[in-house]
């Protein structure tokens, strides 16, 4: 029976195992190695200790592309029967002033600025239609994708206010400075605010339920608290993994190895053979462009005194642009309040060195008047530092073909595959696309192999 190892028990690893189990036409044995004692990676919904209230520490929103095309993630969530909540938020606080629509924008900056935004919006849509947005990152995207750096696009805007407004609006999603962001990626982050392109949602009761649902349905063997240290060559055409777990260090050979790891973890992995190490070096050199996030989440003694709109989040111009999630707003009956700041890019990187207490003080100070919270009302604070945890291609870089992306050493080590969100758009939808692609390739190869035998 073919032995398959999946390294990494995050969404990428679990999605790959799920698809492999669905596609396999003959018995296979899948083992998932997870370094920590929990699976799920950056999809994590912890609970506060002061009250039975949960919050999102990693991925907070899922992207719904179903109005434009196939959306495997939405389909998966629905097939598991997980209830979802739509997430919306058009308020951007700039200089303490809320701008939620064109009427607010006109009041704040006048008719000219409004026209400038209109022109930018028209241009953005003409450059990238909903279908192109949907296909971006795939082999079908073609050369139609706009190239260049996003900072030059922003610099070309006549109105300084609109530039600042747009930067604030999209910064925390980018997690990279506009100078290191491609026009295509920057535009995607602007256009994702338009429901014609996509919608946001989350899983009621926490996104980690998707992980629980997957784990409950997988037949694969789960090896938690087992770090994969090295990938080398094994007997015959197999690949050999060096594993460090409770039982100490050991080695195991596999026919196929799927590395479902984010860039930072992939960079820490050792590769025993020279050609494999060189191939992985090339893969890293192309894809490793670390971006940073930082989450500060506060549990309040009651719902925050926010204007009680339906919005699940809003944008603040603090920390170079950050997203404030009104997490308790998702649960109308919530007796506690949960406010979560998502910082991205340089601010997230530099502030990761701050103490939790300083971060909480800084976060509270960013709240504009109508949202202000008395520090006395904070029951508990949680900080999650995600330095270098994501990666995206900088402006001007051309994505590789699907096969090149997923098989870094196709000729010398055809049994080695990689799965990652960084191969697409650094989201769960992206990592699912990646997992689907690899599972399809592996299943096809196993079928061919079985036929040969």
């Amino acid at each position, binding site marked *: 029976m073919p032995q398959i190892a999946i390294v990494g028990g995050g969404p990428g690893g679990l999605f790959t195992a799920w698809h492999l189990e669905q596609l396999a036409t003959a018995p296979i044995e899948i083992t998932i190695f997870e370094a920590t004692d929990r699976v799920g990676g950056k999809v994590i919904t912890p609970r506060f200790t002061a009250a039975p209230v949960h919050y999102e520490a990693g991925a907070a929103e899922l992207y719904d592309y179903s109005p434009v095309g196939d959306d495997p993630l939405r389909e998966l969530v629905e097939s598991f029967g997980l209830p979802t909540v739509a997430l919306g938020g058009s308020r951007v606080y700039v200089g303490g002033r*809320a701008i939620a629509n064109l009427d607010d924008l006109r*009041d704040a900056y006048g008719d000219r600025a409004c026209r400038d935004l209109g022109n930018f919006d028209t241009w953005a849509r003409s450059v990238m239609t909903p279908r192109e947005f949907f296909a971006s990152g795939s082999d079908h995207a073609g050369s139609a994708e706009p190239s260049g750096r996003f900072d030059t696009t922003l610099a070309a805007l006549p109105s300084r206010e609109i530039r600042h407004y747009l930067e604030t609006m999209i910064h925390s999603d980018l997690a990279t400075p506009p100078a290191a962001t491609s026009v295509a990626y920057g535009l995607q982050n602007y256009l994702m605010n338009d429901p*014609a392109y996509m919608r946001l949602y989350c899983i009621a009761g926490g996104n980690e339920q998707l992980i629980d649902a997957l784990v409950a349905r997988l037949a694969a063997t789960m090896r938690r608290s087992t770090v994969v240290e090295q990938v080398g060559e094994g007997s015959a055409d197999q690949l050999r993994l060096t594993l460090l777990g409770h039982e100490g260090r050991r080695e195991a050979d596999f026919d196929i190895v799927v590395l479902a790891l984010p860039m930072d973890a992939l960079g820490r992995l050792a590769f025993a053979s020279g050609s494999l190490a060189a191939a992985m070096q090339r893969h890293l050199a192309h894809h490793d462009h670390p971006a940073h996030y930082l989450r500060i989440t506060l549990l309040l003694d009651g719902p925050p005194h926010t204007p009680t709109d339906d919005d699940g989040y809003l944008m603040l111009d603090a920390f170079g642009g950050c997203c404030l999630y009104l997490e308790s707003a998702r649960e109308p009956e919530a007796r506690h309040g949960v406010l979560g700041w998502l910082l991205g890019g340089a601010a997230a990187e530099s502030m990761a060195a701050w103490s939790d207490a300083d971060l909480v003080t800084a976060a509270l100070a960013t709240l504009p008047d109508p949202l202000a919270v008395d520090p006395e009302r904070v029951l508990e604070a949680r900080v999650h530092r995600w330095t270098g945890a994501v990666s995206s291609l900088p402006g001007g870089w051309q994505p590789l073909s699907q096969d090149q992306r997923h098989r870094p050493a196709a000729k010398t080590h055809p049994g080695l595959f990689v799965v990652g969100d960084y191969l697409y758009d650094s989201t769960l939808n992206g990592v699912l696309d990646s997992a689907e692609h690899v599972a399809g390739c592996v299943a096809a190869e196993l079928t061919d192999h079985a036929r040969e035998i």
Partner: protein
Amino acid sequence: MTAKDQDATARHDVDADSGATGLAVPGGLPTTAGLRRVMVPPGRAFDLLIVPTEGEPADSGDWIERARLWTAAPGLLPKQPAAHTAVPVLIPLYGCHVIWAPARGAVLGPTGRLDQLQVSLLEFAGCEADLADLELRCNRLLAATEGDAAAAFEFDERGPDRRAELASRFQEAVAVRRGLAALGPAVHVPPVHPPTLASQLAERLRDRTRLPERHELVTDRADFVLQIYEACGQRASEAAIARRQMGLEWAIIVILVAQLALMIVELLASRNST
């Protein structure tokens, strides 16, 4: 302004004189608060309470609660609100508040925002009233299909009245379906981006009252009803044709019999003469 827009404005004609409408601004609201009575399609009166909240947050005092109670006045709410809608619907919207119930609505916010909110609310109220009317008519037809469905299989002639009755139901089903088709674009409006306050309100109102889902459901029902009455029509005309054919057959039989009789008479006469 398109002809359709003009039509919409015309239908929103205002009778602002609260004396004439017998309405009064509820107590406890700012003195600047006003009332409008607007006719929305299909010829229903919709009362609109307008509360400027200048210099005060919209939730100051208990204005929102007073406005909500006013919109929820007894006798004005449907006995059975749509499955997912708790009426009145309260929508807080970036410093403004909008309340909608089938016969009354209220907008609270800074003066500079009230016009946009009113236009959006009235457009929605008209659309919802239209849909509610079509739902009612469709439900009546649906109930009637229970008795009429048999006629879609075999037409039981109980006099000419029955046929006329089925024909009128068919016409009503066509009218309902046509109304739903006409209403479709107003219900399934693609989201506006970048949004305006009016578009945000319209989206939230449609969303909260499940307008698109209700429209889809009633359209499905109307299609079903239409199918039944189309089949009834088919059977009824088949029965009419059959009746006509039977008459013809009898006429032919009578003629043949007469011809036969004549032949016999002729035969007997010729025998007698020989």
